[in-house]
């Protein structure tokens, strides 16, 4: 046993056992994540109806998407941008503010509040459909209608889930409600672990209030957590879409709450235009990458100005 071929440290720079340990994960990763992504890219250049062999069409799907898909340009893209800004960025800022507020409390109330705020994200939309249907029910037996009428804000029940005006806001509120996920927990941990002596030093150096403390001390110290949370927020904001399908069907009335994910589902599984759906998927993956890059340059520790 004293052969000692393997060694981390400085000696062995190419320990073959590494491959052995990575292999199981890597194989599953390649089969179910990498290959599907590559396939999506290839399919996006084809016309594919799931029955016949795909035929090569070059950039046609992308050209159609940009130039003549009116639903995409008029509804899906604006809806997705609005949703991503409010739920992604809004939810992100909200999680930070809440995380910061919680960190100013003692352990027990902090844990209880964090649990309450985090628990909606465990529901992932699907399971909660019945709940939203009861709350947003269109007649006066709906909880929200009943409350608003009692308060005298409205006189007649609003048909929440059919009125195009309210669909997107409803989906956004649900999105925000469930946006305090892993990123939120990461931020709490980041704030709690910031170096305490820095706060004392800052107070001596003239930091006057909690807001300044947050901007100058807390955030710079937890940039890595801020970045992780940002990536989680971006992914969360773009992959949601199930809720609107479950509440209103796909497509939603007047495409009012149609998000990019619903558009993919619409073309892929309802119209069987899989090549086109794949092109939309690739665009989605690219958008997520782009936003994550932006977050990266905002919080990365490597290239400070």
């Amino acid at each position, binding site marked *: 046993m004293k052969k000692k071929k*393997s*060694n*981390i*440290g400085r000696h062995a720079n190419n*320990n073959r056992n590494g491959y*052995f*340990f*990575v292999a*199981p*994960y*890597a194989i*599953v990763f390649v*089969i*179910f994540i990498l*290959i*599907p*992504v590559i*396939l999506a890219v290839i399919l996006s250049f084809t016309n594919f109806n799931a029955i016949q062999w795909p035929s090569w069409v070059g950039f046609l799907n992308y050209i159609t998407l940009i130039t003549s898909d009116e639903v995409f340009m008029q509804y899906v893209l604006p809806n997705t941008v609005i949703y991503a800004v409010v739920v992604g960025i809004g939810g992100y800022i909200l999680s930070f503010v*809440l995380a910061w507020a919680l960190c*100013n*409390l*003692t352990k027990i109330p902090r844990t209880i*509040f964090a*649990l*309450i705020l985090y628990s*909606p994200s*465990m529901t992932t939309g699907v*399971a*909660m*459909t*019945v709940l939203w249907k*009861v709350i947003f029910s269109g007649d*006066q*037996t*709906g909880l929200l209608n009943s409350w608003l009428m009692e308060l005298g804000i409205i006189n007649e029940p609003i048909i929440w889930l059919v009125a195009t005006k309210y669909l997107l806001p409803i989906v956004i509120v649900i999105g925000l409600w469930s946006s*305090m996920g892993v990123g939120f927990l*990461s931020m*709490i*941990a980041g*704030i709690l672990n910031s170096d305490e002596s820095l*706060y*004392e030093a*800052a*107070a001596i150096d003239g*930091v006057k209030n909690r807001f300044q*403390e947050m901007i100058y001390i807390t955030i710079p110290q937890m940039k890595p*957590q801020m970045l*992780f949370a940002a*990536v989680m927020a*971006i*992914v969360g904001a773009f*992959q949601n879409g199930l809720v609107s399908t479950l509440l209103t069907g796909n497509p939603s009335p007047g495409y009012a709450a149609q998000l990019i994910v619903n558009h*993919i589902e619409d073309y892929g*599984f309802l119209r069987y235009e899989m090549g086109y759906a*794949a092109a939309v*998927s690739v665009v*989605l*993956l690219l958008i*997520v990458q782009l936003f994550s890059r932006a977050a*990266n340059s905002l919080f990365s520790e490597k290239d400070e100005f």
Partner: protein
Amino acid sequence: MAYKGKRINPQKFERSQIKIIILILPLVIFMAMPLIFIANHAFKPMEELFAFPPTFFVRNATMDNFTKLIKFSRTAGIPLSRYVFNSIIVTVLTVGLSLLFTTCAAFALAKIKFKGRNLMMQINQIALMFVAVAVLIPRYLVVCQLGMIDSIWAHILPLVAYPVALFLVKQFVEQVPDSLIEAAYMDGATDMQVYWKLILPMIKPAIATASILVFQQVWTNMETSNYYINADNMKTLTFYMNTLVNANNTVSGQGIAAAATLIMFVPNLVLFIILQNSVMNTMAHSGIK
């Protein structure tokens, strides 16, 4: 009085904390309300479900909705127990396999030097941004090609590799001091022994966190039942509960649907409460550098 600084993570209660509690309390209540409502709704007897104006809290709690839920499943061809069985098998196998694969890979990526390691870490970092719904169709094609349609593996394998879990565990393994590992090698330990006897016991919080994250992915997953499974007796509890929710669109069915929702939600919550300390411990190392 001058500003004192250092108010993060206070050890005892101070007057100034009341201000913060008052500020965030409305929001916390808003966030909690839907969950409180569903919990109440599930125990409402028929007349309260029909009540007008609708009530928020339950007055005379009953188990009616739960017994109806079980009765309802008897009328269908497949008993509820079959779905429960499927879900448990799928969840246990997915979480188990995922933990095994993830911790192995995390150990290698964090502590073993080999060619291609940095590339792999970068790929996983990019994969954090992976949006599973975007590749629903090609994933379906892959599952088809592998002949896994209608097999239990179609539920399991697509969810085993979860980049966020690998990332978090890897970050945690990096905290294990190199000196400890080198000492173990000095004593003649193999890589396998180091992994099993040294690394695994030291990264328990990260394992707990990864198991929660993977559990949440598989427990509430509908995708696999919807797209990869045609045979009804191979589908999972989540799928069945969701058909219940959709089939019972009437007011009387709402109670059953709420009960179903509650049953799906509670395991999640309990698991998180049990493991929350470990989760927070892991999250401290969650930063992307």
